[in-house]
């Protein structure tokens, strides 16, 4: 089983290897897809292996995968696969049009592979210090992706991203230190003592005061990566300026990895401090994020910024669901994470196709998508509805679960407020995307792709992602249900 876990983290590095060997866009893209496919396959296999077995642990606790980690690894590997598929067409088109030099193409795949691999490794470690190291390293790798186009706007976005996230993650390190300090009574001398399973099992012996501080610092610190308001300010710029497949990775994989770290801290805090304090923290940050996300979506402009604010909103929803807690709340949160990852991948990947064809990222200059490019336009429309939580897509089901969890756990004010904000977000978001897909397309649209095969490869991740979203909206596969229940059992 350890071999599987190692393969998951090393798989995406094929992109790095081929890029270093000097491959061109097409070959490097295919290598990246193969690597991502290996990682995704191994993640699925590992989840099957974990069923009915104790968590995978080894190397003094540096390697630790339980169903929760396995579930996140599967989500991130799945997003990596979709984004790698989307990268093939995007980077080929950029190379052909002269947007990317050969050096930029190699840089893109090198950092894409590194970014995915570091994130997957972060999900597979039990040592909380190493978790910090890997999350910070993945920030740096993804910052290089954000700034890759080298224009002053993208460099500025990359700078904002790297400086705010680094500061945030450093604060999370301070939180980790206070967590270890709260365990002074446990004499955490050995490496094993600093791991999550050990601390969780001995949560009753932790000192409550430092633990409260540790949890708050961790939520602020890792919350900066997640994009919880008011630490979200880097997010819209970075998502708007990165190449679209990299935006998909940021929104659908990186934010989830940050949320994973928060969930680990939440489990320990919940076990020692009870529900009230963590709930207050998570509900505050969660509702602030939903409100900010929904309000900023009202403004029309760059459509990638719109999707980015929608990510802020959705991370807020997940934080609120974690705050509601209970089996229902956690189930809804995990399901929401998977669904949001799928929907946002489709949205950002289709936005890549749109910006290549229309040569703009302004929503007001895009019209008639459905008539001009039926596949992309249709995917954008359907994914918009999915991300807004309309049936029959997965997010409807998960948001319904979260609202139910709210009514079951807290005062009815919170779920009602949640419903109101969701309605606001619906109107704000749909106002922009509806204008993009309908109407008359401009006359002089040309395909940015040189060959038919490349054009098909851009449609593949859109169709795959939407199909998965539709399945999850109609029926939750038995295997997934088991994994979710086991994940909740790990932390609850």
């Amino acid at each position, binding site marked *: 089983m350890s071999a599987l876990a190692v393969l998951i983290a090393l798989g995406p590095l094929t992109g790095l290897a081929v890029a270093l060997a000097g491959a061109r866009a097409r070959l490097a893209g295919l290598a990246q897809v193969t690597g991502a496919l290996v990682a995704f396959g191994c993640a699925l296999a590992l989840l099957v292996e974990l069923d009915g077995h104790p968590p995978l642990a080894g190397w*003094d606790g*540096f390697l630790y995968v339980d169903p929760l980690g396995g579930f996140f690894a599967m989500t991130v590997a799945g997003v990596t696969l979709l984004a790698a598929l989307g990268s093939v067409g995007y980077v080929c088109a950029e190379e052909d049009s002269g947007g990317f030099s050969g050096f930029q193409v190699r840089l893109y795949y090198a950092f894409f592979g590194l970014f995915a691999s570091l994130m997957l490794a972060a999900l597979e470690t039990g*040592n909380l*210090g*190493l978790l*910090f*190291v*890997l999350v*910070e*390293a993945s920030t*740096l790798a993804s*910052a*290089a992706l954000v*700034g890759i186009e*080298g*224009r*002053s706007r993208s*460099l*500025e976005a*990359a*700078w904002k991203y*790297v*400086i705010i996230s*680094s*500061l945030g993650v*450093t*604060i999370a*390190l*301070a939180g980790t*230190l*206070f967590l*270890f*300090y709260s365990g*002074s009574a446990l*004499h*955490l*001398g050995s*490496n094993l003592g*600093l791991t999550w399973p050990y601390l969780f099992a001995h949560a009753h012996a932790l000192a409550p*005061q*430092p633990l409260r*501080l540790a949890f708050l610092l961790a939520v602020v610190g890792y919350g900066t990566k997640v994009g919880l308001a008011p630490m979200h300010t880097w997010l819209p710029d970075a998502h708007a300026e990165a190449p679209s497949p990299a935006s998909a990775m940021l929104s659908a994989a990186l934010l989830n990895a940050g949320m994973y770290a928060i969930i680990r801290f939440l489990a320990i805090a919940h076990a020692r401090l009870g529900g009230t304090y963590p709930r207050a923290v998570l509900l505050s940050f969660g509702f602030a994020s939903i409100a900010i996300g929904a309000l900023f979506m009202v403004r029309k402009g760059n459509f990638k910024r719109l999707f980015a604010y929608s990510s802020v909103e959705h991370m807020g929803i997940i934080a609120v669901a974690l705050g509601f807690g209970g089996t229902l709340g956690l189930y809804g949160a995990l399901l929401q994470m998977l669904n949001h990852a799928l929907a946002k991948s489709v949205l950002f990947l289709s936005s890549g196709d749109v910006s290549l064809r229309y040569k703009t990222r302004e929503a007001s200059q895009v019209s008639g998508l459905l008539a001009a490019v039926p596949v992309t336009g249709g995917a954008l429309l359907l994914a918009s509805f999915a991300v807004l939580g309309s049936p029959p897509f997965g997010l409807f089901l998960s948001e319904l679960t979260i609202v139910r969890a709210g009514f079951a756990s807290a005062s009815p004010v919170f779920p009602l407020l949640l419903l109101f904000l969701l309605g606001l977000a619906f109107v704000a978001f749909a106002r922009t995307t509806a204008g993009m897909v309908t109407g008359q397309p401009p006359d002089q649209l040309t395909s940015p792709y040189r060959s038919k095969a490349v054009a098909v490869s851009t449609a593949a991740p859109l169709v795959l992602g939407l199909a998965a979203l539709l399945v999850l909206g109609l029926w939750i596969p038995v295997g997934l249900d088991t994994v979710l229940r086991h994940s909740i059992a790990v932390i609850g």
Partner: protein
Amino acid sequence: MESLSASSAAGVLLDLSGVLILLLAFACLASKLFNRYVVYYGAQSVVLSFAAGTAAVAFHSTELWILAALTLAVKGIAIPLAARRLLITRLALKRDAAMSTGLSTSLIAGGALTAFAYLVIRPDLLPHGTVAAAVVPLSTAVILLGSLSMVVRRHTVAQLIGWLIVENGVFLGAITLVATFPFIVEAGIFLDIVAGVLIMVVFVSGLTRQLAEASAAELRELRG
């Protein structure tokens, strides 16, 4: 892990180093010259490495010795040298004018944040009489001061130094609170800092070049 008492020789030395580190953070906040930022940061890292050495003697820990050596080599020497060579000399940076508040205002805010750090950390969080109870408020204050200088300064180089000061504050807390991370984690943190500084240097240089080109283009457009 045994906790160090504040009245032992090592405890007094650690406390003293903490105070020096805080003062150097204040010095950085009060300065307007890019050269000084780097000098103060370097000095702060040297003191931090001394503090790590003191803790290494007190705890008889090899890992802390390695940490002290790494701190001296990477943060005390390599990063200041690289920052001076790659940023300040190459981009001809002298005086930092991009501040959103005056120096006196930011110093008063810094004083208030230090008091806040003591108020938050002192009362019931840490057992009295240990060195941690004396040093952790100091390190919290250093973290807050570093963040403050990132907020009030708009120049990228100043923000970079601010982040490094925050990092130093966390390390000061780390050596008194937990004393040891596993070596691989320590090494990873250092690797992250080095990679972070490198990538930030690339962004800063790129941004400065683009800004220079942009202003040159404007100058050309306005001729005649």
